[in-house]
């Protein structure tokens, strides 16, 4: 034992003269948690969509999704909110990391005293807590993700290529791409409520991950007999509410749907999909072989009813056939859907117009039920001076001609008026026919009702967009085969009552431009003239549209309606749901005699 070793420990005494670490800090001040501290939860309830991903990821079942007073389920929000049980929470913060909406985070508060243990079970963001309004605390780093925020790009034809032909622009996912994209789904099911047909979206996406495409097809046909079609041109409201899209890009639900259909050969459909039930002896007439009519036909036929469809055109599909250009929806895809419906024994009378070839009242007399889904096929007119000019044509006619293989003779410079999907289709079709295209629209790009994707593709294909432009007159041009369009610039005016801003013409800023053709595509209306007045007088009809009751049933018990002519959304998927729901109503009505 050395002397050094005996003395050395007394070095401790030196510390007696140092400033102490702890004592002396009086009054004792509360030490806040670090700025990124994982403390008590806070949920921005207005941003939360109740997807339940926090519930799913919680490793210790510390979270319940619960109903909360004052919050109702509505499109894109389940109305449920996470309730935390601090008896089980381990403050790992996975719930924060996975939160699709980015509404959930943790504060840096870590002290909470209460005499009632049940207090430690609380709905974050819905109950007042002392840490409300704290800005510090753990939140997900923007570069850190627990699911891929970006979607798998769909391979598209290059614009210079796509504009040269009517070949389908979207090439479809490969299996690898589809699986990667399907992987992004958090399976919350928020989209199901928003999908007009309430398709089992998470389930068929799951089937892609499992590689079980036949099951996927079965799941889709539960609610939609047009998956090949909807997989291409659906308005995909589902994607607009997909929680994955809140902080990233929504799951490409539409493309995944298309992928499943593309994997299964039509020849296998009969084996995979449900077959017709025993004959019921009931007969049902359907007016219009569009998506609404054929959807009703499919589900009614499955139940064993005899179904006859009356179609005024030479082919089935309605607007899908005559209004959607083949570069978006190629005929083989549409035919795949329709052929399966027909293969079940649905009879379609082509070139058969109700009102002309058969009286509407005869249908009501001779069939057990009638489903009407005649769509919107009358183009709205601009009602401006000179609209009857021979070089002014309507967009539906242009698309119809092209679908029928006729040359619409539009020349080399075309003005398309309108901002809806028909306008975009007309513009892109005109580009494919070799014309320079100018799109004139009363409002701004962001106000366009057309699908954003279509707008972008139209732009990429070289369509020139002139927005806030109001046409006021069509004039004779110097050359007889041209037309001069007089249009004025518009200012957007905020409507004090709300709603989208309204354009107001600025008379001092008028322009004259000359085109070979002006295509008007400002909207469509219905033609219900085939219904005699004595019947239509009994029906609820407004703004040219039927107002159906529950199960799409009209006051006349036998009459059910659906599709664009009976709903406000006027898209294929809504028509499909109307048809499905009417089929449900008709079956119920025929089965039990109950009204909706």
């Amino acid at each position, binding site marked *: 034992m050395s002397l050094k070793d005996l003395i050395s420990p007394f070095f401790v005494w030196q510390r007696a003269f140092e400033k102490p670490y702890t004592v002396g800090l009086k009054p004792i001040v509360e030490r806040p948690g670090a700025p990124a501290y994982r403390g008590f939860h806070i949920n921005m309830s207005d941003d939360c969509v109740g997807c339940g991903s926090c519930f799913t990821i919680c490793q210790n079942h510390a979270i319940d999704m619960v109903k909360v007073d004052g919050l109702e389920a509505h499109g894109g929000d389940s109305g449920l909110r996470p309730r935390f049980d601090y008896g089980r929470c381990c403050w790992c913060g996975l719930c924060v990391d996975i939160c699709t909406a980015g509404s959930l985070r943790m504060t840096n508060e870590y002290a909470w005293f209460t005499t009632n243990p049940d207090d430690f079970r609380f709905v974050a963001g819905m109950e007042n807590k002392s840490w409300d309004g704290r800005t510090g605390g753990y939140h997900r780093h923007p570069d850190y993700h627990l699911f891929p925020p970006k979607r798998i790009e769909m391979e598209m034809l290059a614009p210079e290529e796509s504009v040269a032909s009517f070949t389908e622009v979207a090439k479809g996912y490969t299996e690898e791409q589809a699986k990667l994209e399907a992987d992004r789904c958090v399976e919350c099911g928020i989209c199901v409520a928003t999908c007009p047909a309430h398709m089992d979206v998470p389930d068929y996406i799951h089937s892609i991950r499992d590689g079980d495409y036949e099951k996927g097809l079965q799941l889709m046909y539960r609610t939609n007999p047009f998956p090949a079609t909807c997989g291409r041109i659906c308005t995909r409201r589902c994607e607009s509410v997909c929680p994955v899209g809140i902080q990233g890009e929504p799951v490409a639900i539409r493309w995944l749907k298309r992928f499943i259909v593309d994997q299964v050969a039509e020849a296998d459909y009969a084996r995979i999909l449900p077959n017709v039930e025993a004959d019921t002896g009931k007969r049902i007439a359907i007016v219009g072989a569009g998506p609404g009519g054929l959807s009703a036909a499919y589900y009614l036929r499955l139940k064993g009813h005899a179904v006859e469809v009356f179609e005024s055109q030479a082919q089935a599909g309605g607007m899908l056939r005559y209004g959607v250009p083949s570069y978006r929806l190629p005929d083989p895809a549409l035919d795949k859907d329709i052929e399966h419906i027909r293969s079940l024994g649905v009879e379609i009378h082509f070139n058969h117009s109700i009102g002309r070839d058969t009286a509407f009242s005869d249908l009501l007399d001779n069939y057990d039920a009638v489903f009407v889904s005649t769509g919107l096929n009358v183009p*709205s*007119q601009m*009602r*401006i*001076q000179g*609209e009857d000019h021979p070089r002014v044509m309507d967009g539906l006619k242009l698309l119809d001609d092209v679908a029928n293989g006729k040359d619409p003779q539009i020349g080399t410079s075309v003005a398309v*008026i*309108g*901002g*809806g*999907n*028909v*306008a975009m289709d007309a513009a892109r079709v005109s580009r494919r026919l070799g014309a320079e295209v100018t799109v004139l*629209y*009363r409002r701004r790009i962001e106000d366009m*009702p*057309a699908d954003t994707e279509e707008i972008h593709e139209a732009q990429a294909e070289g369509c020139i967009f002139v927005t806030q432009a*109001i046409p*006021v*007159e069509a004039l004779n041009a110097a050359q007889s085969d041209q037309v001069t369009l007089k249009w004025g610039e518009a200012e957007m*005016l905020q*409507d*004090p009552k709300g*709603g989208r801003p*309204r*354009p*107001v*013409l600025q*008379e001092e800023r008028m322009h004259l431009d000359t085109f070979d053709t002006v295509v008007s*595509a*400002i*909207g469509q*209306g219905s033609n*219900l*003239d085939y*219904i005699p*007045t004595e019947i*239509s*007088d009994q*029906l*609820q*009809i*407004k*703004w*040219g*549209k039927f107002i159906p009751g529950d199960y799409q049933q009209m006051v006349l018990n036998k009459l059910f309606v659906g599709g664009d002519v009976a709903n406000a959304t006027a898209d294929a998927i809504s028509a499909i749901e109307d048809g499905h729901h009417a089929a449900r109503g008709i079956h119920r009505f025929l089965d039990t005699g109950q009204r909706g």
Partner: protein
Amino acid sequence: MNTVDEILDYAIDQEQQAADFYADMAKRAEKGGMKEIFLEFSAEEERHRDKLLNVKQGDQELHANQAVINLKISDYLVDVEPHENISYQDALIVAMKRERAAFRLYSDMAEKVTEPALQDVFLGLAKEEAKHKLFFESEYDERVLKDN
């Protein structure tokens, strides 16, 4: 029309005529659903009439200086003749044009009279009609110009 009451009586009569016109159209309309639309228009005109009656009795006031948005939609549309098989688009055009004509009439009258009290009444009426025109034009903007 030399007194405020006389002017209001005229205006009330005009609204009544409009209400009757639409009620008549409702009877004659053949297209499904147009009956209800004309009945709605008629009811709208009756509301206007009732408002003017209230003004006359002093229960309500007209405001000559209020700002009313002019969407100018009807200004550039062609005239449409009302008929039995009229479409809802055309029915709206008829209504817009009628309100526009009334607005023009009262505006012109306001310029012609010199007495400030009367001028105020005419201007107030013009503003009322402008509001009605805005009502129909907004309908047109939303329903007919949906894609445009």
